[in-house]
């Protein structure tokens, strides 16, 4: 087993996924997971592959650097820890914390600090700050996973207090309410 993760960063443009995956195919790597996102105009892609035993990490990194040296893309390869994989059956519940309100420096830093203090994992985070009065333009949305050992009440209180201080409207709701109202 030779599981590797390849991170690709660069200015977004058509053809990045094709370039990377075709080269991985030539190297006989089997794709297991791919995810990509575009933030403003920057592309970030993550490729988890199973590489043949004859292709160690260093060789792959070298090959990729060589192949993409003029592409403007930054490629980083790393090993995936297979025994430290996330426990799919970890007990807990997912909540969505959404804040809407004026942009200020350090918003994500301040909220994530509180969440980290409770050893709670942020499973997904989206934040947009454009200023102005459009709620869609100034919104943070954290998907957090709360395990039974977390003092949920105290965490929520701390988050609400912080939002009050910063004059933000905050909602913390179990994810199922979004399922109920949006997914059929």
């Amino acid at each position, binding site marked *: 087993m030779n599981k590797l993760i390849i991170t690709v960063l660069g200015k977004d443009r058509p053809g990045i996924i094709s370039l990377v995956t075709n080269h991985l195919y030539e190297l006989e790597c089997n794709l297991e997971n791919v995810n990509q996102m575009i933030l403003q105009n920057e592309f970030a892609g993550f490729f988890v592959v199973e590489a043949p035993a004859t292709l160690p990490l260093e060789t792959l990194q070298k090959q990729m650097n060589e192949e993409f040296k003029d592409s403007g893309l930054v490629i980083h390869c790393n090993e995936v820890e297979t025994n430290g994989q996330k426990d799919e059956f970890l007990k807990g519940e997912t909540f*969505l914390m*959404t804040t*809407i309100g004026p942009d200020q420096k350090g918003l994500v830093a301040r909220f994530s600090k509180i969440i980290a203090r409770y050893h709670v994992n942020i499973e*997904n985070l*989206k934040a*947009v700050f454009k200023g102005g009065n459009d*709620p*869609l333009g100034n*919104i943070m*949305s954290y*998907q957090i996973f709360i395990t039974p050992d977390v003092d949920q009440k105290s965490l929520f209180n701390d988050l609400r207090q912080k939002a009050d201080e910063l004059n933000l*409207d905050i*909602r*913390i*709701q*179990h*994810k*199922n*309410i*979004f399922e*109920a*109202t*949006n997914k*059929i």
Partner: protein
Amino acid sequence: MYDDNEILSTIEMVKNENLDVRAVTLGINLFDCISHDLQKFKTNIRSKIVTHAADLVKTCDQVGEKYGIKVVNKRISISPISLVGATFSTPQMVEIAQTLNDIARQVDIDFIGGFSALVEKGIAPGDQALINALPQALFETQRVCASVNVATTRAGINMDAILEMSKAIKKAAALSSDDDGLACAKLCVFSNIPQDMPFMAGAYLGVGVADTVINVGVSGPGVVKRAIERGLEKTPNLTLGKIAEIIKKTACKVTRVGELIGREVAQNLDVRFGIVDLSLAPTPTVGDSIGEIFQALGLTSIGVPGSTAALAMLNDAVKKGGAFASSHVGGLSGAFIPVSEDLNIANAADKGYLTIEKLESMTCVCSVGLDMVPVPGNITEECLAGIIADEMAIGMINNKTTATRLIPVPGKKAGDKVYFGGLLGEARIMNVAHATLTDSFVKYGGRIPAPIHSMKN
């Protein structure tokens, strides 16, 4: 992860459109509390209700907090007292009501429903004792709700019972004259009463239902209104078919919220989940009104020509959306048009757009009936009974639930203002044409036979 718009639309529903769960009602069967000894009976019902309902309010609040959706009212419905207390006299029935009031206070719920009788085909001694006890019982208690079913499609209309109820309503109003006849706001007269309804004042636990059960009443008139407005802002020339589709989809969302909360409360209390009642229930808050939906639909006010058609469409779309969202739909399931409880409807009556006759015709196409309608205090028993009989006939013939919650306000006349407070709201007294007639029709008594379509077997 959810789409930004999905997150925001859900937040918007709660924050600005008054989406909440209007009522979580715990039904408790009292048949195993029966005793001929009044003290024993009272001890038994207290013990059973308190055991099952001790954590009701706390659990509803916790679940509401978890999902960010408020459970506004926590309530209890019980087996009809006329059945479980059939051996008791009228003064003893009043005592039972006081005990129920006390229990409601003890478990911190706002209403307990089931001080009820089912008399569509005849009045048994327990029913008579309860009906006679109604004025005193409702005057002396604050949290007890009463309902009497006087008609069904299968049985016809018990006109004797209607006249009895008319007298009871007048007496209850007279006793509570200092509060504009408030006692009557806790009393409904029904045709085809549902046995699983979570809403007051008509909630009781039917005899064919489990020992304990959670029934949920959703809300959401504000959400429906905004959805229609948004649809029309986006596409001003929407056809009514498209608007009905918007209402249907919105009702589906609202119902799913109710079912989610209800099921979790039931699970946490280790009680069976019963039904979701799809009724759009308004409050006197602006933005939480059924009346405003009519205006969103392009009518000057609820009550003007077109209102019955609009209500028919609204009610049907709500049912279709709700039925898709939940497999267990029950109760009344339709739009409520309670006059004093909905500021916009009260204003429509005030301005003359909505009359009691139009209100009655609108009840042909929605649930409930003449709900929270203040009428002049000098209305005769015969006229009041006539209004009730008309409403019951609509329910009987159309195979649907209808009810009346009429308040003859002592010492006041049409146009005078009455104030009930809280969710019961305020309104002006509606004009009732011929309120002082003493026609003999209702006094002939007996039963109006069941309609031909009752013979389905």
